[in-house]
């Protein structure tokens, strides 16, 4: 669009007055998938519930009446990402400044995160893979993990950290 152009026109929503059951059916058909999407990024129930709630409260009144199922899903995810960005900014104190030299420098690090969880685990040395599988996929406590691997509790604690950092493509032992 050229500078000075005043298009595009606003899309007008007809006030068709759908019954409450209509939006509730849309909500129920999308809520589980959105929750899983959010949970895979927040990793815990209270945050996943908060983000999912805020997303639907914010997004449902703004959905156009003529959108497809795929568009609803995309709009919900876009809204959820914005809600998560606000949450992380507030909680971590990062990723909020538009021009932040330190963030920019970090952002040039070449290693991307591998999102293929199965591939990540397969690529690890066996003791690292085992500690992550026991802790995260089986939900073992540190004590149970240590017992299953025949190592001490303190070793299990350190090993899970090193395994996770290595899997994330980071250095196993941080500088600080």
């Amino acid at each position, binding site marked *: 669009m050229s500078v000075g152009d005043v298009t595009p026109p606003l899309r007008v929503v007809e006030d068709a007055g759908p019954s409450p059951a209509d939006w509730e059916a849309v909500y129920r058909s999308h809520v589980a998938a959105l929750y*899983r999407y959010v949970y895979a990024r927040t990793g*815990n129930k209270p945050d996943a519930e908060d983000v999912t709630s805020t997303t639907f409260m914010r997004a449902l009144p703004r959905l156009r009446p003529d959108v497809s199922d795929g568009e609803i899903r995309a709009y919900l995810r876009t809204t959820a990402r914005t809600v998560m960005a606000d949450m992380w900014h507030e909680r971590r104190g*990062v990723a909020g400044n538009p021009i932040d030299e330190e963030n920019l420098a970090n952002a040039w690090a070449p290693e991307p995160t591998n999102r293929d969880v199965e591939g990540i685990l397969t690529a690890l040395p066996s003791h690292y893979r085992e500690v992550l599988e026991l802790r*995260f996929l089986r939900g073992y406590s540190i004590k149970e993990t240590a017992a299953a691997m025949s190592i001490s509790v303190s070793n299990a604690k350190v090993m899970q950290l090193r395994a996770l950092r290595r899997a994330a493509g980071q250095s196993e032992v941080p500088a600080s």
Partner: protein
Amino acid sequence: MTRADRRLERHIEALLKDRRPPRGDPGDDMRAMQLAAELHAAHPGSAEPSPEFVDALARRLRRQHDEAPVPMPQRRRFLAAAGLAAAAGVGAGFGIERLHEALSEGTGRTGPLVPADGNWVAVAKLADVKPGGFQRFSAGGVEGFVYTLNGELQAMSAVCTDQGCILVADPAKERFVCPCHYATFSLDGTPHQGGSYSDKVTPLPTVSVRATGEDVEVLVPKTI
């Protein structure tokens, strides 16, 4: 154990107990913490919403709807959507296979963000939108940048399509950079290829923009 070790350990313990992780700067462990969330989500059953939560949110939405009528898709469409959800197998175990689905964004352009009911909101002065410069805005729940692209005004979402971090503009290389997972996007919103994650990242949504007098305006949802 170092301070960073204890911080990461507390983070893991919280996630495994399904609690909020402690606040604070993740330091060098941001990617490890994100991976911890993904691994925990792969635990069978952990990433499903509870029926109590689903019902409670439905009640909240009903109250919101009663206060302000909600425009919704036509009946034919949502019936089709509900049918698909049922066919997908409610109650199926959630494991690594489902995590792939939860992490993937699908393919194709995300498309423009067009609100159902929007306002044109002034977010910058036209004189301040200079070639090579970026103006961040936050309006109507939309985080974005306005700038010029090939001599024309452009507005783009500033939220990474990966995990929702706010992007950083990198004027020197004419791109947007995600500080969380290092995804990069060209100025037309296209994600750059190369990383093993890049096929999971969809293009940035554009935001409708116009110049009115001295102001640059974007089309964003009305504030509720």
